[in-house]
């Protein structure tokens, strides 16, 4: 084999090394993170423009007031004062948070055994199970809520079914248009969101840890509480946040199945942008909601981190 080298595109020329283009290119080559950030920049830019800037604007709006069709841009805390003055706002806020907590708790409770089943007990065809629980995640939220409206309604599936079976003679009235209906519907609609994070953290657990626990004398129950549960906590917490945060501000579900007693803060916010036509107030309510959620979430995370650190 000949000694000739014909590596195409061989770099040459000392003169080129001083050009600006070359210097810029060397800088990029040398600092890997520059190249990475450059690649990331379109996405980051879009996120900033579509999320950060609007949210910032929303906060700005909360300090302004609605003057019929115009926005009065003088800085004022009037909206926030209104929140504290009218008890209905705070009451509704806490009610929404409470309902979300119930919903989150119910969802997690129902989802955990399912995730556990797939992670530990399924050996063949895991893919099918995973697809089955993932698909509802992607289908129309609106339709899922609407399905419950149809099921729980006065003339709906449950009532008509029970009547035609002869179990009851008059339709049950307590099924729909109350907070319970909202919590139930939310738990169903968000179930799929809860399973995946829990499943992921369970799947990641090193199986040899469980074998070690058994070898050291644990019964299955002990092993679960002492090894599996603590190691799956990050997934549980993630699932909890993933369900709790969006449901606090939910609009569709209380509107469709909540009636008058089941309304949540989302309904009031929407009306500020609709009939009530008080955008700044709506903005202020949103800001307060986000603050409340953030405070709760942060407290929760700090508390759990401390508790786990102690162990």
């Amino acid at each position, binding site marked *: *084999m000949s*000694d000739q*080298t*014909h*590596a195409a595109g*061989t*770099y040459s020329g000392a003169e080129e090394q001083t050009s600006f283009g070359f210097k810029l290119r060397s800088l990029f080559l040398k600092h890997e993170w520059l190249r990475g950030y450059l690649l990331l920049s379109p996405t980051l830019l879009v996120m900033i423009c579509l999320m950060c800037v609007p949210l910032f604007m929303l906060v700005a709006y909360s300090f302004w007031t609605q003057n019929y069709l115009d926005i009065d841009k003088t800085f004022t805390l009037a909206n926030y004062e209104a929140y504290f003055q009218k008890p209905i706002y705070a009451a509704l806020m806490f009610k929404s948070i409470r309902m979300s907590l119930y919903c989150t708790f119910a969802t997690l409770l129902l989802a955990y055994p399912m995730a556990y089943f797939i992670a530990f007990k399924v050996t063949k065809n895991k893919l099918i199970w995973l697809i089955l629980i993932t698909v509802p995640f992607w289908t129309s939220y609106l339709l899922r809520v609407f399905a419950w409206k149809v099921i729980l309604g006065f003339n709906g599936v449950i009532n008509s079914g029970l009547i035609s079976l002869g179990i009851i003679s008059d339709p049950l009235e307590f099924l729909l248009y109350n907070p319970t209906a909202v919590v139930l519907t939310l738990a169903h609609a968000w179930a799929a969101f809860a399973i995946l994070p829990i499943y992921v953290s369970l799947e990641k657990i090193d199986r040899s840890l469980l074998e070690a626990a058994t070898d050291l004398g644990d019964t299955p129950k002990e092993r679960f509480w002492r090894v599996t549960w603590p190691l799956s906590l990050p997934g549980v917490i993630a699932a909890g946040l993933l369900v709790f945060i969006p449901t606090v501000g939910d609009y569709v579900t209380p509107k469709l199945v909540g009636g008058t007693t089941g309304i949540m803060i989302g309904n009031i916010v929407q009306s500020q942008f609709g009939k009530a036509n008080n955008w700044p107030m709506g903005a202020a309510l949103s800001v307060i909601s986000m603050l409340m959620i953030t405070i709760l979430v942060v407290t929760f995370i700090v508390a759990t981190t401390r508790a786990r650190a102690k162990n």
Partner: protein
Amino acid sequence: MAREDYISIRNTSKHFGSVKAVDDITFNIQQGEFFSLLGASGCGKTTLLRMLAGFEQPTLGNIYIDGQPQAGVPPHLRPVNMVFQSYAIFPHLNVHKNIAYGMRKSGLSKAEVDKQVDEMLELIKLPGYGKRGAHQLSGGQRQRIALARALIKRPKVLLLDEPLGALDKKLREQMQLELRALQRDVGITFVFVTHDQEEAMTMSDRIAVMSMGKVLQIDSPTTLYEIPRVKEVADFIGTINFFEGEVKGKEGKATVVETEGLGKVFSTASGDSAPTSGKISVALRPEKFNISFQQPNVQNNVVEGVLQAAAYLGDRSHYYVKINGREAPVAVASQNAQRQMQAVEADNKQKVWLTWDEDSVLLLQS
């Protein structure tokens, strides 16, 4: 005339945050050489290799290949090619397309490229494998295809990142010899990274022993083994016995060291460059000791001990001798030149005597 500084690494460092993966290294690699970078994990050898390839840029210093500075030159424009540790065979292309991958810009006609691919397959002893899919290959076959893929481009330098690590022992030993023969055949400069010192010793013209980002010593395998410059190198390459001691001066040509265990020791190994005072480590390879079951008739360079353990390895035997003043037993290796009908039984009572040559006594600083 083969260029001595075909690859020239000058004051090169690579920092990752506060970690100095490569710390101010300077050395040359000769054209046509089989050069190995040897060291434990984390010593910086792979980082250095990747800087030659262009996947990392030096934080400080410069690298030159065939006289050309490589600063700012991206990997696809460098006259080097690399064989990756994982082989990186493209799973979506068959063997032929894998080998031909880098020839797209060569300006050669398709027929010519195909011909060269077939020649390559002959060279790596896989003729007719062109149509095979990537998933149908064994580890050894992948390794050779990765090699072919790189060599077909006739690079000035071939870089190899621990390419034999994933192979089983017999295959590895066979590949070591094949690689060496191949390198001699094509005459390309090879830069080979490994943590296996036997592997480096088998294949290389010269070895750079690295540790913690620095180069400890660069020499031929023989020199590294017989004349290690620092304790770490001596310890890394092969086995060696260390005896701590203090230099007492000179007697004629020999340096005198008072050691633990061996007593007064004479060394002519370092010649005139030997230190004349201070603490030093005396080092002797196991095969440099002569072991005898009768007391030999010498005054110097002898020590008495008790045989603690013996291992019969067929062609040679290893003995472990406990001597006074030293906790660890001395490791001794001895060829079984005479026919042994029985392996030696070690019962911790057998007296043995060790003798050695003054020439074999190495003096090493830490």
